């Protein structure tokens, strides 16, 4: 219901400037971007996903869903100060195919040359790459660092932001505040999680010819609960509590509703046309063991040789969630041991402890087309593959390779 209301609101927003159109306006443009790629790994125990919005996981047999997408954008200037943008992306995303893939639908108003106010559906730009991570052509890698961005599953929110720009020396300082309500669907082991959450935050960015540095604080709160009925039924079962004493105490460990998230991040990018460097670090403070506190970061260095870019990336994600003890059955019944094992996976496999190193190349074969190839090697600590789909927990690989080839383009 809320989703429909917001969509109607967007449409009203988007058609409202028509009445004010002059001869010079509206000025329309249609453009787009896309990526087609093939990804394969060397394990069938863990499924590779770009983030938790994806429904299909990639294994040894390979797949095209992880990085492939096609986006189309409609821009319209209605006056010198009024602009609207629509962007829709065809991609693997849990939930409603149209609504969840509507990435941008906003009206922007510039009451002054250095002031921007936007309202509608906006991209989440908490991190350096998060608001354009779908646009593979805009960055050198196959995808932004998995160690860092796999945990950033929120693509968009419905609300408003206001940005004020200041000229300082040869650069520009932008102070931005944003607030709204995110409605994003995730595919998790228990089903589709329709995550509704208020969000707000503030960012400060300084940009010069070659540098961009941003620091961001972002607050989110879970208004909805994960589909945990199957878990709570087991945890609160009197019969099971009789043979697994203390089982009901796990209730707080399988719930997200009414818990808060606080992100703080610092990122910087350097690009002098030959060398390029990206680095980000983030700390996530959460109140639930389903997510845990997470420190993550990455550093990427690349060198261009004419129209070929070679790069490497090191990334790390380290969760601080302490393993929760799952009550041991008073009798060693195979069924009860199975329940204990399954609850252990549900409660204790959510804390990332992974590192990776990537080597890759981007070849700009055309001003609007780039071919890419990338190899990533991941290391996991025990139960650390939290950003992966667990397909067979009888085998827990501590290292995985992921190979990718693909093409990015804009039009």
């Amino acid at each position: 219901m809320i989703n429909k209301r917001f969509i109607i609101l967007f449409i009203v927003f988007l058609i409202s400037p028509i009445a004010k159109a002059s001869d010079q306006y509206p000025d329309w443009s249609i453009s787009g971007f896309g990526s087609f790629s093939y990804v394969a790994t060397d394990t069938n125990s863990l499924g590779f996903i770009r983030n938790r919005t994806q429904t299909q996981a990639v294994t040894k047999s390979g797949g095209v869903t992880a990085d492939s997408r096609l986006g189309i954008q409609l821009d319209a200037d209605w006056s010198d100060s009024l602009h609207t943008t629509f962007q829709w992306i065809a991609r693997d995303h849990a939930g409603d195919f149209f609504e969840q893939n509507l990435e941008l639908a906003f009206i922007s108003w510039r009451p002054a040359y250095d002031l921007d106010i936007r309202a509608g559906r906006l991209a989440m730009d908490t991190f350096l790459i998060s608001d354009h991570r779908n646009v593979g052509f805009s960055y050198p890698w196959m995808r932004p660092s998995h160690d860092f961005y796999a945990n950033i599953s929120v693509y968009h929110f419905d609300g408003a932001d206001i940005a004020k720009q200041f000229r300082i020396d040869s650069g520009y300082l932008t102070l931005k505040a944003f607030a709204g309500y995110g409605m994003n669907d995730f595919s998790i082991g228990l089903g589709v999680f329709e995550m509704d959450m208020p969000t707000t935050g503030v960012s400060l960015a300084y940009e010069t010819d070659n540098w961009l540095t941003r620091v961001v604080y972002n607050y989110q709160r879970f208004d909805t609960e994960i589909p945990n009925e199957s878990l709570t039924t087991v945890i609160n079962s009197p019969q099971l509590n009789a043979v697994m004493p203390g089982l009901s105490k796990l209730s707080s460990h399988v719930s997200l509703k009414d818990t808060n998230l606080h992100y703080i991040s610092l990122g910087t990018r350097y690009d002098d046309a030959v060398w390029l460097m990206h680095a980000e670090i983030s700390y996530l403070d959460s109140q639930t063991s389903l997510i845990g506190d997470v420190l993550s970061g990455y550093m990427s260095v690349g060198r261009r040789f004419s129209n070929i870019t070679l790069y490497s990336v090191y990334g790390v994600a380290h969760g601080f969630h302490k393993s929760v003890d799952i009550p041991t059955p008073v009798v060693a019944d195979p069924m009860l041991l199975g329940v204990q094992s399954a609850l252990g996976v549900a409660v204790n496999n959510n804390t990332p402890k992974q590192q990776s190193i990537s080597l890759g190349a981007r070849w700009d074969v055309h001003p609007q087309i780039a071919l890419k190839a990338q190899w990533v090697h991941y290391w996991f600590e025990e139960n650390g593959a939290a950003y992966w789909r667990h397909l067979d927990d009888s085998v827990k690989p501590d290292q995985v390779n992921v190979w990718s080839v693909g093409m990015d383009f804009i039009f």
Partner: protein
Amino acid sequence: MKFIILPLLLLFSFPLSADIVVIGHLQNTNPMMTAREVQDIYMGRQRTLADNSIAYPVDNKNLRNEFYTRLVNRPIEQVNAYWARLKFSGQRTQPEILLGTAEIISKIRNNKNAISYVNKQDVKESEVRILFIIKDHDGTHTN
């Protein structure tokens, strides 16, 4: 035969480039632009001309590669990647791309805040105002 080959060799032994001029409306009364201003407007960092009126930058499809190479010392695929980030994140509107000098001159004459760029020899100073000159080859900016 050699009378035909020799002129052809001479013709292709020199790069076929010339000064590029950034142009604006005749009623654009702003002072001559600096390289920094042109860079900031065409890279989406600044939206206004010196008088704080909104600039309407227009790209010339025929000269786009040469223009950005000289202006910001980046090949066009890097400029496209840069703009893909700004445009598809909804942060900025990319300059409109027009094909041909006549279309650009017409755009400039019909929009007081429009700026674009053409080869210097294609400009009649009775039609548009020259705001900035990017010299041939050496990348020197003149204003």
